[in-house]
């Protein structure tokens, strides 16, 4: 910097100025080298495990491989996959799962977080209890549901409870109408712990004076939640809603384990499972890639609309 101040800006010759700029750039580059070096790792991992497979998948969706020979087939895979009788069923199931998961999996953690936040004693223990299922590997948790809770005979936990209460029992995963609610129930139980903790952190950041002021204005508990809690946690609520929708639209492990795949007459077939079925059971990797691209486009479109809407609101 000393050299820069020694020569007044107006008196510098162009040559000297160019040298200075180069030196400055070189120094800037050196200064940022550490940052670039750290970036290489992330870029390498993203490129290898995210971007390359994504591009490869898009390319594959326009190809067909037979006897080890790959040829370009235009939109044939897309046409074929849309004509698969399970295609619309899979989308319908996926949307149904997403909506149910939004009602149950979005609302329940928020309510639980509010309740936990209101507690004066044992908050820590209850927080651990709520978070405990997240620590179970998803496959183990789902097998627990499959063999212990959802057993279609009277020996199953849920059926035993229903029987004890003199209520009609269910065949759970074997019933076309109960398959989706049962999957959502298991999924919510498994995943709600993380959402509860995030909501709790957000709730604890709400200034107490706001509640006090609301109370002075005569607001009851529901009014306080509506007028204070929800507006104050709106950003987190919006973010988690989007993350939840994007995650639940990719539901896969639940049908795979709970319903042994497609379930009763495709009642558990999700789009992600249909991709798996085409790719690995029907040896149709190109069709699977086409369906994967369709799903990517749907989720990208949803995310774009969602971000635009929430940005406008803010």
């Amino acid at each position: 910097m000393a050299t820069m101040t020694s020569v007044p800006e107006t008196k510098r010759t162009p040559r000297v100025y160019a040298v200075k700029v180069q030196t400055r750039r070189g120094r800037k580059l050196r200064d940022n080298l550490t940052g670039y070096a750290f970036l290489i790792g992330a870029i390498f991992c993203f490129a290898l495990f995210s971007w390359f497979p994504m591009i490869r998948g898009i390319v594959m969706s326009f190809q067909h491989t037979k006897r080890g020979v790959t040829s370009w087939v235009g939109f044939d895979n897309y046409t074929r996959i849309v004509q698969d009788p399970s295609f619309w069923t899979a989308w319908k199931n996926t949307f149904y799962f997403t909506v149910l998961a939004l009602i149950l999996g979005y609302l329940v953690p928020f309510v639980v977080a509010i309740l936990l936040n209101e507690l004066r004693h044992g908050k820590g223990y209850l927080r651990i209890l709520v978070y405990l299922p997240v620590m179970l590997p998803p496959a183990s948790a789902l097998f627990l549901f499959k063999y212990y809770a959802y057993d279609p005979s009277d020996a199953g936990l849920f059926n035993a409870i229903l029987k004890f209460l003199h209520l009609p029992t269910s065949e759970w995963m074997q019933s076309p109408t109960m398959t989706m609610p049962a999957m959502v129930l298991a999924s919510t139980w498994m995943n709600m712990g993380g959402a509860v903790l995030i909501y709790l952190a957000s709730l604890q950041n709400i200034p107490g004076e706001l509640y006090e002021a609301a109370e002075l204005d005569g607001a009851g508990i529901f009014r306080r939640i509506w007028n204070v809690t929800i507006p104050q946690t709106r950003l987190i609520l919006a973010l988690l809603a989007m993350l939840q929708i994007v995650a639940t639209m990719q539901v896969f492990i639940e049908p795979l384990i709970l319903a042994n795949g497609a379930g009763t007459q495709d009642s558990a077939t999700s789009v992600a499972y249909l991709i798996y079925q085409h790719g690995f059971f029907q040896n149709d990797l190109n069709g699977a890639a086409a369906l994967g691209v369709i799903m990517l486009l749907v989720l990208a479109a949803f995310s774009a609309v969602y971000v635009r809407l929430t940005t406008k609101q803010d």
Partner: protein
Amino acid sequence: MSVPQYRKVAAIALVAGLGFSLTACSTKGDDDSGKSAAGKTVITVDCQPDGSQKDLLKNWNDDVAAFEKENPDITIKSVSVGQQCNNPPDFTARLTGGTQTDVFYGYMTDLQQVLDSGQALDITQYATKDNIPSWDSVDPALKAVFTDGGKIYAVPTKNYSMGLLYNKTLFTKAGLDVNNPPKTWADVRTAAKKIAALGGGVSGYSEYSAGNTGGWHFTAELYSQGGQILSADNKKADFNNAQGKQVLQNLKDMRYGDNSMGTRQLLQWADLLTNAAGGKVGMFVGAPDATTAIVQQFQGKYQDWAMAPLPGQDGAAKGTLGGGEGYFFRKDLTPEQVKAGLKWIAFEKLTPGKGQFDYARAKTQNQPVGLPQPLLFANGTEAQKQELDARKANQNVPSENFGLFEATPVPIKGEPVNAQAIYAVLDSAMSGVLTNPNANIDELLKTAETKTNQLLASNG
């Protein structure tokens, strides 16, 4: 070390680490010649029994040791791929990723998939008596299954046909005659009702409907009706007809008409055999080696099980499903590796008195000996004679248990092309009638037909 310096060092270490990783990725771990440093030919082979199958694992490892002693220039590296050597999605993933072993297990139905993946090696010139001493005795029909365009791509190691397996203990308890098993599907229905009436969670008849196994059994039962999965030219589905409907109707009647199939459905291979080994299944369609799996993998008793021919609709079955397995070879193997692989397959799978035919050893381990299959050797060949003699000498399965199955042969039909993909489609029809009392059989078959035709069209 100051913070900026520490950051620089960490960054340099990170870049260097990545550089080393890339170098490691780009360098093949094994020598392309397939030779070890000691100059031995090295081959990897899959389908080594997993840790849960202690006797089988010990037998395999002992066999590898004995083989390597006999062939000091060959090293076998065994790989276990789970209890079921070919779980279709795992198999596809390995094949697509090119991570299969040098010599790899596959079903007879897998030839097209292996060819499509571009991973198959033509072993015609190597599949000779020099490398497999019993090769000329192997049933030519089985070699044909693994042959395409006149080229052989795999060595057959098992061959089966399906029938009706039934639990003698449950038959006796239900007052049924163990020597007079059901001959028709109506008989099966009657017997299933009586067995299910025993209670205690016992299913009179049990059936698959998930993991491709439902479609596999639909095919066998369709053959029993005289039907076929595909048209003669393999271009169209041919099961949406009276025979296909009858298969599903029989199951629906037993499941919901008689409630004789139990409430737990969507069963896959291991689910049903676990129940069978636990004495909870009266009858199911299967091959003789299901008894072996019940004993070896699911801790059941072979003494409980007997086998009858597949039932027919109004009399004897018009056909039954035949299938089997074999070993393929990676396309990039050296001639020495192919020969080493063939020698190992010959030793473990195709030599009377050794490997899978070591009946003396199996008997000491209380494994079932005397089952009528695998039928690998052609009639009248020396290998067949040796195998039958050894089997008889060590037999522990009462001959009457499988006598009727052996004495009443049913015409065997092979599996359709693209079998595993079609089985996946047909699972849905099977699960439909087994889990939905209001399932519409016509609709189920129509949907499966549409999907199968699409699949055939896309596979050209």
